[in-house]
């Protein structure tokens, strides 16, 4: 399984000695197997990409290699020497450096200060350190000025500072976790030039991504991880993005809902030209338009961070600066407050139930009231109707099988699945006409998952419009009547779940498509020559 199916034939990879050798790495968390029998070889002077879906276990693996977490089983060898890494400091000592997806930089300090922090013994904090930074910056073409405030740097430059930090400490193995997720195409090209520079210096670069065309353009070897284990290591020369996507997603897709379609032609939710700029002016959402009909479930597929959360929050009226039309059942809600939208008939199952869905230190019945403060049975004439709210909470507990001793239990004390069932029950209690469900089964147990799916199907039968956002393709295909794929804040493809192939979904989600699925959508480019564009 670990042996590459096609022996690596890329010129620099063949003979170079191994920088990293992982064998049989396993890591389990309560209820989850994050890594199982992971085997990877990374050679010096190569860029080794590790690809996989969200939740495939890439991040856990890298945390193990960087000493943040200890593996339950397996061995790590660095330059032929078996090591055990108890902390990042250990990893740094062994020449492993990591560039986190969320930068670990202090904005109000200069580049110099950020780089030398914690490593003042190497070259001090003055002129010597500055010279060393300039040297590294020049050697690898990073273009970093040591005296600039990090605050004044763009995202790409910050990333180069992170790389510089790692190099300053003498790393020979550099891990980059989803480095391109935050970059615009031009910055991606610059980053790749930098990575090639590192490679030429004999460093080993481990590059984690799920953007396949990027991986193919820069990597010397690609290892695919699915469900916590290494599926295959391939030579990028011999594979296409579509083949990689298939490896990533798996060859079988779940069968779509066998229930009869309940879709009518009555439009309940009409979204037109919805856009949302970020603080830097780059669009988080870019001209999104779609309709959801009565009795229809619209699934939104996409790799995380491509605008799903922003889409949901814009529809809920929680984002300032969102423009475009949100029309619910013929009523224009574009300028209505969040409360107005909820009262207008939107039920909302938020992505992060701890932050957005619950008052963790309040009893269940108060959580029943949350978001329904203005409506019966929770409230009457400006007063909270405690008796009715408690009674209705009990009804939800019974109907939705929330396992709890009673309505006075604190929400925090319930398991994730039961918390989520309570939220679903609450949101359905408001008799909504639209249900927005963001990752409704994330982090819940199998039993609760099945129950929540059943409730969403029931909602569809009862004639609701449902907007379902999920990273779980099984869930999307099993529940949706139609799937839209979101990429970089735009809808890039529309699919029928009963006919869609894994390649089609995988390609659209990763921007690797070399066939346009619907004539109306165009494929964004990433600026790399390998990505095909049909225009």
């Amino acid at each position, binding site marked *: 399984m670990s042996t590459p199916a096609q022996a690596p034939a890329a010129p620099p990879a063949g003979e170079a000695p191994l920088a990293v050798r992982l064998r049989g790495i396993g890591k389990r968390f309560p209820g989850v197997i994050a890594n199982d029998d992971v085997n990877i070889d990374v050679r010096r002077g190569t860029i080794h990409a590790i690809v996989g879906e969200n939740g495939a276990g890439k991040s856990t693996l890298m945390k193990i290699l960087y000493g943040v977490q200890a593996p339950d089983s397996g061995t790590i060898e660095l330059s032929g020497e078996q090591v055990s890494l108890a902390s990042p400091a250990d990893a740094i000592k062994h020449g492993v450096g990591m560039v986190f997806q969320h930068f670990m930089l202090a904005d109000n300090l200069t580049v110099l200060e950020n780089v030398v922090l914690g490593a003042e013994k190497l070259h001090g904090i003055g002129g010597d350190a500055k010279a060393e930074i300039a040297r590294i910056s020049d050697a690898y073409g990073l273009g970093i000025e040591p005296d600039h405030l990090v605050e004044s740097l763009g995202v790409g430059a910050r990333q180069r500072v992170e790389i510089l930090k790692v190099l300053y400490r003498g790393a020979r193995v550099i891990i980059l976790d989803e480095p391109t997720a935050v970059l615009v195409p031009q910055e991606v090209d610059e980053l790749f030039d930098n990575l090639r520079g590192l490679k030429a210096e004999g460093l080993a670069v481990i590059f984690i991504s799920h953007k396949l065309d990027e991986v193919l353009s820069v990597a010397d070897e690609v290892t695919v991880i699915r469900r916590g284990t290494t599926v295959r290591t391939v030579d990028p020369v011999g594979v296409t993005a579509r083949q990689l996507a298939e490896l990533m997603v798996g060859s079988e897709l779940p069968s779509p809902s066998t229930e009869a379609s309940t879709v009518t032609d009555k439009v309940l939710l009409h979204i037109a030209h919805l856009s949302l700029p970020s603080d830097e002016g780059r669009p988080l959402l870019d001209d999104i338009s779609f309709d959801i009909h009565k009795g229809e479930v619209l699934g939104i597929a996409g790799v995380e961070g491509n605008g799903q959360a922003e889409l949901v929050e814009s529809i809920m009226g929680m984002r300032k600066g969102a423009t475009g039309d949100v029309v619910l059942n013929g009523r224009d809600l574009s300028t209505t407050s*969040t*409360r107005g939208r909820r009262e207008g008939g939107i039920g909302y199952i938020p992505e992060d139930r701890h932050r957005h869905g619950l008052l963790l230190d309040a*009893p269940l019945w*108060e959580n029943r009231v949350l978001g329904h*403060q203005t409506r019966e049975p929770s409230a009457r004439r400006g*007063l909270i109707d405690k008796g009715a709210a408690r009674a209705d909470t009990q009804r939800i507990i019974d109907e939705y099988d929330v396992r709890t001793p009673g309505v006075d239990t604190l929400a925090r*004390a319930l398991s994730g699945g039961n918390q989520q069932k309570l939220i679903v029950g609450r949101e359905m209690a408001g008799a909504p006409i639209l249900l927005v469900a963001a990752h409704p089964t994330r982090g819940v147990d199998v039993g609760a998952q099945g129950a929540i799916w059943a409730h969403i199907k029931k909602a569809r039968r009862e004639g609701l419009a449902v907007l379902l956002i999920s990273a779980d393709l099984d869930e999307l295909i099993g529940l949706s009547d139609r799937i839209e794929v979101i990429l970089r804040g735009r809808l890039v493809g529309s699919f029928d779940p009963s006919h869609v192939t894994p390649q089609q979904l995988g390609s659209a989600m990763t921007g690797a498509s070399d066939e346009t699925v619907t004539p109306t959508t165009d494929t964004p480019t990433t600026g790399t020559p390998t990505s095909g564009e049909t225009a």
Partner: protein
Amino acid sequence: MSPRVTRLVLGLAAPLLALVAAFAITSLVLIIAGDPVGGVWSTILQVPAERNMANIINNATVLYLSGLAVAVGFRMNLFNIGVDGQYRVAAFTAAVVAGEAWLPGYLNTALAIVCAMAVGAAWAGIAGVLRATRGVSEVISTIMLNFIATGLVAYLLRKVAVREAGSNEIGTKQIPEGSRIPSIPFSDNPAISLYGFLVIAAFFGFLFWFVLNKTRFGFDLRATGQSTTAAVASGINVTRMTIGALLISGAIAGLVGLPILFGDAYAYGSTFQSGLGFAGIAIALLGRNHPIGIAVGALLFAFLDEQSNPLQIIIGVSPDIVAITQGVIVLTVVISYEVVRRYGVRLEQRHVASALEKHDPAGPASPTDSTTKGVSA
């Protein structure tokens, strides 16, 4: 035990733990200083005489209002450190209005009270608007407003002051007899009585409880305090709630000086009691922002103040030792509530787990995130 009973027991355990710790630390200070520990506590902890009892209740009335004012902010995770300034601006206003006596009798009183609340609210509202629109920490702005209030009141007092014959003190005009709030008899001795304002304070305590626990507005306020993100997702306008909460807090703060004004001093002078706002912070923390708890806290603080008075005469120890106790209570109460809270969550999770016959494969939600109030300055 049902969860509610458990919660009640735990709720009582925390302040007790805090008190024990505070008493222990105070005793330690006494020992180090070489003062008689036993003598101090036996003096303080004796049963108060009737006159002292009345003083305790009267002072507690004042502290209670201060605690309520702070608690409104705390319930929304706002730190109204400016009760001190708010009540002085408000009490001064009330004294001027009542002293002018534009309206007859109790109408005059009512007008003065309303004016005091409005001015207190406005003074706190400045901090609310700055926080909601400019992101200025209410901690810093209310501290600044406290000092500005001091200067402003001193200036205005000189403008409107009347000097009493034979006294150096200046003050506002005396409130006419008919507009004073009659005292409540407390014993056979007519000189020992309670502030009539006690009734109004109790009413506001009830109102506080009712609004916070029974109304939609109160629910919104508490929800915002517990989780801003969940509040936003549930449709609460957090900006409006921020200003609203500080306005209410300021309005209650406006009442703090009034028991003294209408029941004892009848005028606002340069020696009008100050510093009541900071005690309110301690009392609100001790009382867990609950009207009953705040009442107990206010009584305790007033008790300590009153009972420590004779320390100097009886055993030659400065009564200021209780200020150390009071300050230490603020720290120990916060720490012990946090300790007890974590214990309580663990207990409840175990309770839930054992109450559920069926095995739930996924573990309970992690109690890792902290609930320590995050006030950034």
